[in-house]
């Protein structure tokens, strides 16, 4: 096994700095002073000594702390200053829609990036994000990048789930805005969002349209979840069955999907005889656009950055290092938002990858997989070992947050992951042919429907096995 590189260790130290800062909650200025001190020490100690290496480690540790402490500070104009219980003031809010609208059972939700707020005759500039609630079947059509004006009341987020409140805090959503009247929200202008993200969302809508046109409703829902991260059309009982069997990760866009998309793009470009360097250079922006199309969740950002690092390594003809690419992805995500360290998605995403990378070679040498003579059996055992490695690494986190333990997970993953791979490939082919040779799309849609039916039946069967999922209060 390759030894972890220094950059990986320094990233772990940076993460430790964030964690310690969350425990001790010191002022930002203290971390800044320590960082400056160890930076000066690092510059002065030119010779490589144990002391200089310690200075570097402590510099990175306090840098992590400084980033975390800074992330907790809100600007004077932050919207949270107007949010408190029993606030009966009427506000006018002007802002830009920051995410595509989400339809829930009781409301339609917009996440708005605030720009101005007015109460009475006082108008102030404003920052931060707020969740605006509309009626569920509101006929007003809002999209990402629309500048809106609304009148209503500000309230803290109300939820019985502490995990959900924690999640909103990580996303920097300060509170909820209830409209004064259901019709008192108006669009002032559009196209105020990031143009690249707007293009990605347009592609996403077209892709969704193509999937729904050809696939049956259940398989369209599953394919949309696997390819685009849209889970709202998956029936609740199927989602819960997959959660209990530990296979719900296939319904979440993650590195698995990014890898398949990168593979498909690469193969397609190779088929049309594009040169190697051009192929790699073209694959990179396509990966980034796919990341934006799927909502840029933490697992997808992690996989995209790791994918870009690997592509860059191939471009300059150097061997890619998985620990370095993982460390770079973690640093990128945590430097933009250190609170992500406490997000379940971040923890599961990185722990699963690292546990596979670390444990799989050890398990492989432990059971001496090379001695298995039958190749298909050897392939199955390898798959089981990968699943087992990820399961061992993530079992503790899943138990801590969800109080469940699924012994069926390694077996379920062995059966379901290859099926999910086929569904993702068929779904990608369906989308491709829907836009190019539409006459072939129904064939791929029919295959996708069959595979999804097998997936659903298998999931429901596995979760009914005795001891499949153990729940603890």
């Amino acid at each position: 096994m390759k030894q972890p590189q220094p950059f990986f260790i320094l990233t772990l130290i940076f993460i430790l700095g964030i964690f310690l800062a969350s425990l001790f909650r010191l002022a930002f200025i203290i971390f800044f002073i320590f960082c400056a001190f160890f930076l000066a020490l690092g510059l002065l100690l030119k010779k490589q000594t144990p002391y200089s290496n310690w200075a570097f480690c402590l510099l990175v540790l306090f840098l992590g702390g400084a980033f975390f402490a800074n992330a907790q500070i809100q600007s004077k104009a932050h919207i949270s200053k107007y949010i408190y219980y029993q606030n009966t003031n009427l506000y006018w809010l002007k802002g830009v829609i920051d995410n595509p609208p989400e339809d829930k059972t009781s409301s339609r939700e917009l996440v708005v990036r605030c720009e101005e707020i007015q109460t009475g005759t006082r108008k102030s500039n404003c920052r931060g994000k707020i969740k605006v609630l509309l009626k569920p079947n509101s006929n007003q059509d809002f999209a990402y990048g629309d500048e809106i004006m609304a009148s209503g009341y500000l309230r803290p987020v109300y939820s019985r789930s502490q995990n959900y409140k924690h999640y909103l805090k990580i996303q920097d959503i300060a509170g909820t805005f209830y409209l004064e009247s259901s019709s008192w929200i108006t669009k002032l202008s559009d196209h105020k969002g990031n143009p690249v993200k707007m293009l990605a969302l347009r592609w996403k809508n077209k892709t969704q349209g193509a999937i729904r046109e050809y696939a049956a409703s259940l398989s369209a829902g599953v394919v949309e979840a696997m390819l685009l991260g849209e889970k709202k059309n998956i029936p609740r009982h199927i989602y819960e069955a997959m959660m209990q069997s530990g296979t719900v990760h296939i319904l979440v866009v993650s590195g698995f999907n990014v890898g398949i998309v990168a593979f498909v793009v690469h193969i397609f470009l190779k088929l049309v005889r594009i040169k190697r360097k051009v192929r790699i250079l073209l694959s990179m922006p396509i990966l980034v656009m796919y990341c934006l199309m799927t909502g840029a969740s933490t697992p997808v950002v992690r996989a995209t950055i790791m994918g870009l690092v690997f592509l860059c390594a191939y471009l300059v003809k150097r061997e890619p290092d998985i620990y370095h690419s993982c460390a770079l992805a973690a640093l990128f995500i945590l430097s933009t938002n250190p609170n992500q360290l406490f997000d379940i998605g971040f923890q599961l995403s990185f722990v699963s990858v690292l546990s596979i990378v670390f444990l799989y070679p050890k398990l492989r040498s432990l059971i001496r997989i090379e001695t298995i003579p039958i190749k298909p059996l050897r392939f199955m055992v390898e798959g089981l070992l990968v699943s087992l490695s990820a399961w061992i690494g993530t079992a503790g986190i899943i138990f801590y947050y969800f109080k469940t333990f699924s012994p069926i997970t390694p077996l379920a993953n062995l059966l379901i992951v290859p099926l999910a791979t086929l569904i993702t490939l068929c779904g990608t082919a369906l989308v491709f042919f829907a836009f190019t040779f539409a006459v072939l799309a129904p064939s791929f849609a029919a295959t996708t429907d069959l595979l999804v039916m097998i997936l659903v039946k298998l999931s429901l069967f596995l979760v009914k096995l005795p001891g499949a999922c153990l729940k603890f209060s």
Partner: protein
Amino acid sequence: MIDLTQEERKVILFLSMVALCGVGINFLVKTHASLKTVLCPTQETAKINLNTADETTLLSVPGIGEKLAKRIIAYRVENIHFLLIDELKNIPGFSQKKLSQIKKYVTIE
């Protein structure tokens, strides 16, 4: 603990310096940015401009339905623009009562 080459040390020092400057500047911007507050005699921010609003925007005003919104736009096209809010009384369907109801939501610019 870790062995760093001379080049690695230089890169880490440079990146740490840039990161420290960046987070320091961000801290200063957050803590010293001024809260710009202006006093508006009326809630100008919130009002809809009768001379530029499209049909969808007009429909969001309580009291204006589809027919009235179309009539407002037709009047605006015919007369180029509104000079006064009270001109709405010239449009069929706009009574004094309706005008006083929607006056607080509209403006002329």
